[in-house]
């Protein structure tokens, strides 16, 4: 069973001419947790939508062992769980239970199996007991956790989260971090929240202008201030990377490939900032 992403020369242009992706090469191995960092408009969300066939561009893309493009979309969508940024977009059913059940029912599972999955998925995000509530009765942090449950219930092989920590208060953010850390799955976390990335992911990919400009251990990338600055990113004032307690789930640290700066490290923007 493959849980990886293999993207080679992925290009995508929106109908209005805006370039979303401009030749993305990305390889993610089974069990890796990768933070996808980048400024606004870098192509992060576009990349995410490619991964389960919601957008289709040029280039080679294989996700979870399934070629994206000519394969079975249903199988692909079961394998890749997308968690959207705004939980109000993701939770569209009248009750939490029905929303979590939506995916598994679409997969054609019988009702008992679906109910079991709903219970487990809600328990995994510590939201058991709110199954019959309506989404509008929940706080943003709770809705975001339920949104993750809606995807977990489909038992995807790859979890892709878009800005999971956006607009959360510190406590909800910490709880979300703990919940995600306990999920043992290949994970792609699209985020602006660099400390969140540092705490959750061992590898980071920096996307800018539709292509990958850096790829390597999360801490090394986050420690490279000129690189971050060149792409409109920065750590919060006073944030000390050295004090981040990175605790990989299940006591194993996944090794990330060494830092690679694409373009041979001669990024003119970076050079400018370094000077």
């Amino acid at each position: 069973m493959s849980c990886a992403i293999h993207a080679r020369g992925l290009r995508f242009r929106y109908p209005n001419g805006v370039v979303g992706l401009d030749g993305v090469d990305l390889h993610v191995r089974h069990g890796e947790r990768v933070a996808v960092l980048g400024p606004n408009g870098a192509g992060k969300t576009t990349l995410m939508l490619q991964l389960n066939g919601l957008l289709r561009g040029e280039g080679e893309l294989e996700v979870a062992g399934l070629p994206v493009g000519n394969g079975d979309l249903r199988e692909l969508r079961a394998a890749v769980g997308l968690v959207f940024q705004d939980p109000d977009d993701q939770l569209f059913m009248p009750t939490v239970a029905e929303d979590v059940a939506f995916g598994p029912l679409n997969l054609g599972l019988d009702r008992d199996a679906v109910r079991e999955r709903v219970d487990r998925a809600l328990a995994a995000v510590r939201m058991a007991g709110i199954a019959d509530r309506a989404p509008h009765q929940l706080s943003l942090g709770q809705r975001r956790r339920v949104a993750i449950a809606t995807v977990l219930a489909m038992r995807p092989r790859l979890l892709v989260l878009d800005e999971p920590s956006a607009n959360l208060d510190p406590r909800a953010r910490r709880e979300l971090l703990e919940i995600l850390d306990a999920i043992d799955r290949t994970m792609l976390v699209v985020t602006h929240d660099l400390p969140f990335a540092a705490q959750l992911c061992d590898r980071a990919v920096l996307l800018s202008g539709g292509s990958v400009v850096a790829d390597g251990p999360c801490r090394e990338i986050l420690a490279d201030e000129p690189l971050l600055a060149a792409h409109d990113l920065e750590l919060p004032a006073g944030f000390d990377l050295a004090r981040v307690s990175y605790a990989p789930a299940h006591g194993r640290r996944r090794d990330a490939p060494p830092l690679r700066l694409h373009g041979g490290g001669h990024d003119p923007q970076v050079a400018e900032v370094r000077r």
Partner: protein
Amino acid sequence: MSAHLHRTGVAGDPASAIHRLDPRAKLAGFAGITAVAVSTPLRAWPAFGACALALGAIAAVARVGPGTVWLRSRVILPLVVLVAAFLPFVRGGPAIDVGPLSVSEAGVATFASVAAKALIGTVSAVLLAATTSFPDVLHALERMRAPRLLVVIAAFMYRYVFVIADEARRMRAALAARAYRPRHLGQVATLGRMVTALFLRSYERGERVYLAMLARGYAGTMPRLGVLAFGRADVAFVAALVVVLVPIRVVAELAA
């Protein structure tokens, strides 16, 4: 607006015999009561009385208090009654003097009947909403073969009306925070722009929701997790209403 939205939902004792009925039984029952009241000839007071008694009994069993019924009815009742309020003034026939006004006797009687019908219909809807969650009503409609598209639209409306109302509230607060208080017609244009912005936001949200649906394998039909079971209690509930209301309705027809 939000105040009214939050005055919806299940009320009374959620464990009552009425709350536990199959939503199809309740939908059929309340629709039946309304149909009897609306279709009964004017001035057939025994039939209206029977409908009112049935509603009163249901409310008592469900422990939905008169306060709740009144608060919720108040939202729609004035609109319904307003239409009938002109009847006493436009009907001909013998007139009665009420202070400076002269009203038609037949008109007053018609008004009373129409108001009674409106009241029964409104209270039926209020009791249905107080004893059945909206998702359950939708489920019942779907199972009773209501057009699927309408049910789906109603479901999305229920889910997003709160989100949109929240957005509208925030926008109004933002306008008020910058001292917006429309005093003449020219300033109302701002409200128009606000409505446009709300529409565009909702339209964009619609696209994102659709993507989220596709991402979880949506293939054209909305799947359902729950199953409805029409049991003995449900049969008894519907049968009791039929036994009480149908004969009275028929007698009213013959008497008229």
